């Protein structure tokens, strides 16, 4: 291996390691450092009875009143939106991984990822109701920072122009990057030139940093800021870990279905095994991240942080939390431990549906307790929003998928991915000689 290649691979490794550890490393400092000023706020508020009452009321704006239809609809919409964004962002990240590690095995599934990530402009468009009706979703948008210390210290991020700017900025950036990945890949279908791979690799090298930072901030604003008092710099990587999990389940399912159709003969046993293994890896990684967030907060036991989980232990939210522990981690972990189950569609088919359900439950666990503090509250709006959004995006995905080749036709590493490990079946050798 010559030096530039080694350097690039090292850079890729550092970038990925950085993406995964940066937020968790920072979280340790951040979850301890802000405690002092936040404590100050509690003391100051205790001196001022009126301010204290108001601050408490703002912890969850729906605690005292029934949610209006608009609020209920917007919260269902936000839950479905965060679910769909997970898959689009996860596929987008898988493209980065592919190029950064100069991977061969993931060439056959790259077009699936490119087309999923290609939904980014639509995700941007679908964020419009959240931008427009923000004040009906996010309590902090209707609070004067002067009356709320937690908001006052975070107002540099939590203000409407920044909110709108960051979300529009993120989607413009991600759409540009995702569509460029896809168009370069499709251009390679025609000429097979290695320059497209090199260009994409360069974009992935800076893109992974851009994605790590912008995704963290975007998720802070879209989901974490529902309770603006909360501290967890781990929140971005928490959303990322769950997103990768559900994305790998989705990609696995699409790959297996298409392996009898458009991808016939392209998906090797090894590719199936590797996607299954990554899915298993992210089962563990999600649990690791979510446990770490919970454990740091539990161990420090600072009210400014614990309230987030205390609220999610009220009523039936406690059972929902247990469902995440057992359904999102323990059951899939045990089931996916063996190699043969990761390859078996009779196990993986239900597993994919389960992963979708569990990720939706996870999103509900994050979003809904703000509106329904007494426990899980499902309305018809939830499936309506989910099926509507997922159906719409699925339709666009399939429409786009059919306009280009189902896999990168002339990728330099395609042959390697297909025939790399191919071994003739017993008896086949005789025909060679």
């Amino acid at each position, binding site marked *: 291996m010559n030096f530039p290649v080694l350097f690039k691979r090292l850079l890729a490794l550092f970038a990925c390691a950085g993406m995964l550890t940066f937020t968790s490393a920072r979280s340790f400092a951040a979850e301890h450092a802000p405690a002092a000023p936040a404590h100050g706020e509690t003391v100051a508020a205790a001196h001022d009875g009126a301010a204290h009452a108001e601050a408490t009321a703002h912890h969850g704006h729906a605690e005292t009143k029934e949610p209006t239809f608009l609020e209920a609809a917007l919260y269902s919409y936000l839950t479905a939106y965060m679910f769909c964004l997970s898959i689009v962002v996860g596929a987008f990240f898988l493209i980065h991984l592919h190029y950064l590690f100069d991977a061969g095995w993931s060439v056959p599934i790259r077009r699936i990822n490119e087309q999923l990530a290609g939904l980014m402009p639509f995700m941007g468009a679908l964020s419009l109701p959240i931008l427009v009706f923000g004040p009906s979703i996010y309590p902090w948008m209707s609070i004067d920072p002067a009356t709320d210390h937690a908001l006052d210290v975070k107002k540099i991020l939590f203000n409407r122009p920044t909110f709108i700017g960051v979300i529009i900025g993120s989607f413009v950036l991600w759409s540009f990057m995702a569509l460029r990945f896809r168009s370069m890949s499709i251009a390679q279908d025609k000429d097979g030139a290695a320059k497209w791979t090199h260009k994409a690799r360069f974009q992935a090298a800076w893109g992974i940093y851009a994605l790590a930072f912008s995704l963290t901030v975007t998720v802070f604003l879209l989901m974490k800021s529902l309770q603006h008092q909360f501290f967890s710099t781990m929140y971005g990587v928490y959303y990322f870990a769950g997103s990768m999990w559900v994305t790998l389940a989705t990609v696995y399912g699409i790959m297996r279905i298409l392996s009898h159709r458009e991808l016939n003969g392209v998906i090797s046993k090894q590719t199936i095994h590797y996607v299954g293994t990554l899915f298993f890896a992210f089962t563990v990684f999600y649990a690791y991240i979510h*446990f770490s967030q919970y*454990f740091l907060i*539990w*161990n420090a*036991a600072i009210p400014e942080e614990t309230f987030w989980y205390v609220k999610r232990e009220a009523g039936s939210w406690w059972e929902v939390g247990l469902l995440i522990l057992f359904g999102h981690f323990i059951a899939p972990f045990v089931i996916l*431990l063996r*190699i043969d189950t990761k390859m078996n569609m009779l196990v993986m088919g239900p597993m994919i549906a389960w992963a979708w359900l569990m990720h939706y439950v996870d999103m509900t666990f994050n979003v809904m307790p703000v509106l329904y503090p007494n426990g899980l509250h499902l309305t018809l709006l939830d499936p309506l929003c989910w099926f509507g959004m997922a159906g719409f995006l699925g339709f666009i995905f399939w429409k786009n998928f059919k306009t280009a080749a189902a896999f990168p036709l002339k990728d330099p590493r395609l042959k390697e991915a297909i025939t*790399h*490990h*191919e*071994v*003739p079946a*017993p*008896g*086949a*050798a*005789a025909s*060679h*000689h």
Partner: protein
Amino acid sequence: MSANAKTYGLLAQFDTAAGIFEAAIQVRDAGYRKWDVFTPFPIHGMDDAMGLKNSKVGYFTFCGGFTGFFSGMTMIWFMNKFDYGLVVGGKPLFTPLFAFPVSYELTILLGAFATLGGMLALNRLPKLYNPLFKSERFKKATDDKFFICIEATDPKFAEARAVLEKAGAAAIELVED
């Protein structure tokens, strides 16, 4: 070679990675059980070409990890609650929450030990002597030649030479113990 030497096996040399790959498939399909392939570098797909099943090391790993996890939990429960109850930071005397990081680390540690130990045991390592070391030709296995050795204890050893010749061996020699 001493006078009372007994046959260890047949050693066949191949000159290319593709050659030995095809040869391994033929030896596999001929139904041999006690044989091995020696190459200077790993050849992708050789496991399947040799008809090797998935490694059993995973079972060792699982048992090691399982032991680690539960010994971690038990240790902390015993120390912190049962044997010498001690309140730390106003937390309960025992909860899986604070026992988890330690149990998790022990899962990994004992899992790794079991993996290494299981691998060595299954490979019957360390092994200080192998009759193949007597072959001058075999030294090339760490350089640029590829070898298949069919051991004499295999029930089909009688036809081994014919199979290896048909598979395109560049040279075949008898190795004695």
